[in-house]
């Protein structure tokens, strides 16, 4: 059952990622990205990361992608024109991509020999309780720093998107 679920959702993730790169229209790319994020949330659940899976659905597939689609529709972004300038990408892009994936796969296979076997439910560590305990004890300082970062990002977004820029 684990294998079936992994293969189904890994296939959805890879197909959606390829579609993100190949689609001409930004809305189609954004919907493909939502497909990637949803299937990754299922994979997180298989790895026992309940809290991260839910945060992935809420924060990424919810908030961030709504922001993307909002901006795409606000700017009325059409299909992108293909400029014929990137001949290097046309010729060498796909071989380089395959070489990178194969090298990474080889390194992972050879470099990590004692990897575990993923069994759903054999380790449930990532509940909200565990995450919260660690987040408010050992990772308290990074948590506060990140909250200040979010505050600065909100201010920056408001200042940048004002009506008059100068």
């Amino acid at each position, binding site marked *: 059952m684990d294998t079936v679920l992994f293969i189904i959702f890994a296939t959805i993730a890879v197909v959606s990622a390829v579609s993100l*790169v190949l689609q001409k229209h930004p809305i189609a790319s954004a919907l493909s990205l939502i497909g990637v994020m949803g299937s990754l949330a299922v994979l997180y659940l298989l790895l026992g990361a309940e809290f991260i899976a839910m945060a992935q659905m809420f924060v990424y597939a919810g908030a961030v992608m709504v922001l993307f689609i909002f901006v795409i529709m606000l700017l009325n972004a059409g299909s992108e024109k293909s400029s014929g300038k990137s001949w290097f990408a046309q010729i060498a892009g796909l071989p380089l991509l395959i070489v990178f994936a194969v090298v990474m796969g080889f390194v992972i296979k050879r470099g990590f020999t004692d990897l575990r076997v993923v069994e759903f439910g054999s380790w449930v560590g990532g509940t909200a309780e565990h995450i919260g305990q660690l987040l408010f004890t050992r990772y308290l300082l990074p948590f506060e720093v990140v909250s200040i970062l979010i505050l600065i990002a909100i201010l920056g977004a408001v200042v940048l998107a004002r009506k008059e820029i100068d």
Partner: protein
Amino acid sequence: MPHVPLSWYLILSAILFALGAAGFVYRKSVITVFMSIELMLNAVNLSFVAFSYQLHRIDGHIYSFFVMVVAAAEAAVGLAIILTIFKNRGTLQIDEVDSMKL
């Protein structure tokens, strides 16, 4: 094979990262380039969670959570920058935004 080896998750993460990098280099629309960056961040998150499973510690989940928060902040600021570029230039093609080119 009844269960999935963890290396499959890592290889999936590598494939997604490679696709995101390819989209980042290959695409011409600013918004799609930005979405490719999000795809790369997601791939890294997957390998964080996978290594967290390997070590049976949830520190990787915390890092993944921080990556998510930073990505949300980055999306807000980046999309505001894209809005400003479109307002000042009237285009979303990264080829045409080249006033800092020598």
